[in-house]
């Protein structure tokens, strides 16, 4: 054994340490790190796409809710109540496993390309889910528009649409930004549901690694590190964004002037 140890290269030495002495087999994780990066790509892909689709849906819904538009307000409230009151996991199961129960769904032209694919089912459910949450806090932000801003817009002779586009929405988006950064992180956390419907997201890769090598925690710890890094980047990004967008609300540095 001692003879063998001397002939080892540094790399083999690392593998030896990793397999026998380190609590985590880090060399094994390093061997499969590319899989984790692909997992991170899938996680980000679904998270970003669904946030985008959900966000685009949420703007008109939030406006309709904020102004209590007859005919629309009630159904939209029902939609947000349903999606905010139930677990995303069950919503995803409902779409992915549940829809196959109906013959007309399986016979429709949507079945082959979209509704039988885990990726599309996840995207649809996640988009609707985040649309529900975003609608409600955007509605709050629109309702809190200072009255003076609206009066000023009316005094300038702006039409309803122009006032919405130039005054109400930009100021509402600013006020909603802190809540939105929470929603983005929340969506990233929720995307672990992907691994329960056969997709290889970050956690999915971690589960695969543990299953393949019969490990107890290497895959999960690596997944944990990946998620933490992503959350770190997201919250730093939002902090910079808030600095730019909410700059006029920061206390001004008068001493330097």
């Amino acid at each position: 054994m001692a003879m063998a140890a001397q002939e080892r290269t540094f790399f083999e030495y690392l593998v030896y340490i990793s397999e026998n002495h380190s609590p985590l087999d880090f060399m094994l994780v390093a061997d499969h790190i590319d899989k984790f990066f692909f997992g991170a790509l899938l996680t980000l892909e679904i998270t970003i796409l669904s946030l985008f689709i959900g966000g685009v849906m949420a703007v008109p819904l939030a406006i309709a809710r904020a102004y209590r538009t007859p005919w629309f307000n009630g159904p939209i409230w029902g939609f947000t109540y349903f999606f905010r009151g139930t677990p995303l996991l069950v919503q995803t199961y409902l779409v992915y496993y549940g829809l196959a129960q109906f013959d007309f769904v399986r016979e429709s032209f949507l079945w082959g390309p979209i509704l039988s694919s885990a990726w599309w089912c996840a995207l649809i459910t996640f988009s609707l889910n985040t649309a529900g949450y975003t609608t409600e806090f955007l509605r709050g932000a629109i309702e809190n528009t200072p009255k003076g801003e609206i009066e000023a817009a009316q005094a300038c002779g702006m039409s309803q649409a122009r006032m919405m586009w130039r005054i109400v929405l930009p100021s509402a988006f600013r006020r909603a930004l802190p809540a939105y950064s929470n929603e983005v992180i929340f969506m990233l956390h929720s995307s672990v549901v992907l691994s329960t419907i056969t997709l290889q997201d970050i956690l999915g890769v971690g589960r695969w690694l543990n299953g393949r090598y019969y490990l107890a925690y290497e895959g999960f710890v690596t997944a944990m590190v990946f998620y933490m890094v992503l959350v770190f980047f997201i919250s730093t990004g939002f902090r910079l964004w808030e600095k730019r967008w909410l700059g006029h609300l920061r206390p001004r540095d008068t001493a330097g002037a």
Partner: protein
Amino acid sequence: MDSVWEYRNLLLSGTAVTVQLALASLTLSVILGLIGASAKLAVNPISRRIAGIYTTLVRGVPDLVLMMLLFYGGQQVVNDLGAATGWWDYVEINQFIAGVWSIGFVFGAYMTETFRGAILAIPRGQIEAGISCGMTPLLIFRRITWPQMVRHALPSFTNNWLVLIKATALVSVIGLHDLVWNASTAGRSVREPFSFMFAVLIIYLILTAFSDVGLRWLDRRYNVGVDRA
């Protein structure tokens, strides 16, 4: 939908497990939240640092990842530790315990922020008044801090609880026979997954609606002395 009714006992027993899990996790999270908040408000920089790491860690990691880490990895760590020290024999971490600890741990961090904000909202002068009347710290907590803290914390507490109930669904992934697990198993066996999942969604909506009523009652009770516009 007939088959859902046929399996009602399975769904009800699953609901009972879900509710027990949610309440146990809530209790743990409140305890961790109180400890965390007092650590964050303490003068000691080390305790503030530890509480800071705790809340940052939880914000960074999804609950399902922690749950799996605890369920699959925690078992081994606990038993390795037991074997090395000889303090305990084989310990089994079942799905329920793993669920309670991981959900409690995650929401303890959110509760920490909730309670910290609520305690900070109490004017410092009232605590000083208590001290000058010769109250012990315990009496100050019971008579001054707690009743007002609950009032300030309730809106955010309500929010945390509603998110917590929904988080319990994830425990079905590690195999706890909760509402979601029972329903998806039954749904598969009678080939009506949609009906069963829909029933689960309705049950979750009922649970949240019930807790809404209860929490509103609490809110009224703790706001008796406050004028509301």
